[in-house]
């Protein structure tokens, strides 16, 4: 009898991300091979085999010049959805820096202050 196929485990589950080639913004790979700007929609791989499959799926759209630089990264699953692990991916997933022009992240309003429509907050 052939030995059971060894599937290499992952330390953490992973999702796959990339940037849109034309716009540059951060996107996440969904299970159907399309991309979302919300990490909560991302497909999650639990072992190396699934990770390889997701990266291969990402590679298909990378070859159509839709996204660039696809890679996998560690996530933790909360309520069945991926949330980023590590400061780099936390910042990427938010899509904006953790700072405001006028103050620190500790200010509670920072998350809403720095969107494109609110760029006037950077005024003098």
């Amino acid at each position, binding site marked *: 009898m052939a030995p059971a196929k060894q599937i290499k485990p992952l330390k953490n589950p992973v999702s796959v991300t990339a940037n849109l080639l034309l716009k540059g913004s951060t996107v996440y790979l969904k299970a159907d091979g399309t991309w979302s700007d919300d990490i909560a929609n991302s497909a999650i791989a639990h072992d190396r085999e699934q990770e390889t499959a997701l990266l291969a799926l990402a590679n298909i759209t990378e070859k159509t010049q839709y996204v660039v630089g696809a890679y996998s990264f560690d996530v933790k699953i909360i309520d069945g959805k991926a949330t980023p692990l590590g400061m780099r991916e936390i*910042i990427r997933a938010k899509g904006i820096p953790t700072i405001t022009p006028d103050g*620190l992240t500790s200010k509670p309003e920072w998350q809403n202050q720095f969107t494109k429509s609110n760029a006037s907050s950077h005024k003098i």
Partner: protein
Amino acid sequence: MSLQQSIQQAAQKEYSPTAPAIAPKNVQMYKYDQFDDEFITQRIDQLRSQINRRLAGELSEDEFKPLRLQNGVYLQLHAYMLRLAIPYGQLNSTQMRALAYIARKYDKGFGHFTTRQNIQYNWPALSDIPEILEDLQKVEMHAIQTSGNCIRNTTSDPFAGAAADELTDPRPWCEIIRQWSTLHPEFAFLPRKFKIAVNAAEQDRAAILYHDVALQIIENDQGEMGFKVYVGGGQGRTPVIAKLVREFLEPQYLLSYLDAILRTYNMLGRRDNLYKARIKITVNETGVEEFSRLVELEWNRIKDTGFNLPEEQKQTIFKHFELPEFELHQYDAEKFESKKLKNNGFDYFVKNNTFAHKQDGYTIVSISLKPHGGIPGDISADQMDLVAQLADDYSLSEIRATHRQNLVLPHVKLDDLFILWQKLTKAKLAAGNIGLLTDIIACPGLDYCALANARSIPIAQMIAEHFDDMKKLNDLGDITLNISGCINACAHHHVANIGILGVDKKGEESYQVTLGGSSRSDADIGKIVGPGFSGDEIVGAIETITNVYLAGRTNNDETFLAYYRRAGQTPFKEALYNVA
């Protein structure tokens, strides 16, 4: 609204009724001729076709990346980033208004001045970049060679052409180097990036000894001007101070000598390891004597047959930089002193933000881009427009960007200084902290940068918020504090009196402190003081370090660096880590 309309509208805002629609033509800077303009047109067409080939799948990302980088286009965490060239840090007011226009139209209403006297935008789309470059072309600017493994923007003294302590104006030489290096066919695919800096002043305000080639303009015993040439300086993971390779280079040979250095480096530089590819490693591994022997050998071959800029054409470039006509006037010293006495803020501003001008009655004014709690180097589009207006009104329409991420109005009449300060105050641009602890250099860090390991900007903001007492800051005096978010050292942490390096420590941001660096003529590389600190601890650590200095200095004249050089690391280690 078109660029032209925007510039006109900005110039006609309430700031001054006398403002010209377009900056006066007499600004002493290089002005494009038809050749330069046609060159830029062709270069933009080339980039547009490269982008189209990338989108059509005819260029892979690996092939496209160095091409876009050589046009200043990076891909960062959230978006593309576009770095524009500000040749040797010089801008006129029209160009500043164009930068404001680009910030509003293509970005999020602000820009970021860098340690290489350039400006970068954090949010452009790849598809917009050719259009941005066409707008820039209208004001004689470009983004060529602001990144990539090629010869980068030449940097220089931000006070050039104005400083009382300069031997001569270095800018014409920088312009000659800019043109020579622009799309130099032999040196577009070097082992690694290559940076040249020129200084002609007594003080080094351009950190020239940390460049791949440093040119110090000197006078020899016969009173002739020439270049003292240093090679192999750099920062990154291996900080090195440039080494002297030629005591005196006759100026007519500048370009053939640079060709010889670059050619030697292009052949010898390592291509097997990205981290060992800079010329500093080549010089260290080859030995400075052998490296300079090879350069001299090549230079002797080409000095008379190779390309050196003919005298007549050199003169044509120099003409662009002839000194402006300064008004001879007697400033009212008594009135000036009384204003200082009445306004603490103005007093600090004069003390820290002004520098001696070569013309009596004038001064050089630094505008700090490090306001209380602000982001070092960031400036909003409205602030850019205001600075442009102030340049028109008070500084012969000229502006400079500094390697410490500040701006400069180089030709301000002392009589105008008070009103200038009042207008800057209104725009939150009057921080009188130039050269003080809160004049922090910070890279974009993990908030923007794809290479970073830790955030830089929030640390800078926390330190600036903590040290917001001007009296204490002035008591601490001359201190440089630089924060890099990774070992690439974009914020020059190695050469700060107090350097902070963000690292990733098992998934957490951690901050390593170095002490004793200097980027001036007494150049030195800082040494790590001990284990790193968390983001919560780092402000306390800086407070401890400054307290050690305040308690230990012999008198107020002993600067932080002088104290450190005398006392060494021990008192700092003891205080930071409670070790005896």
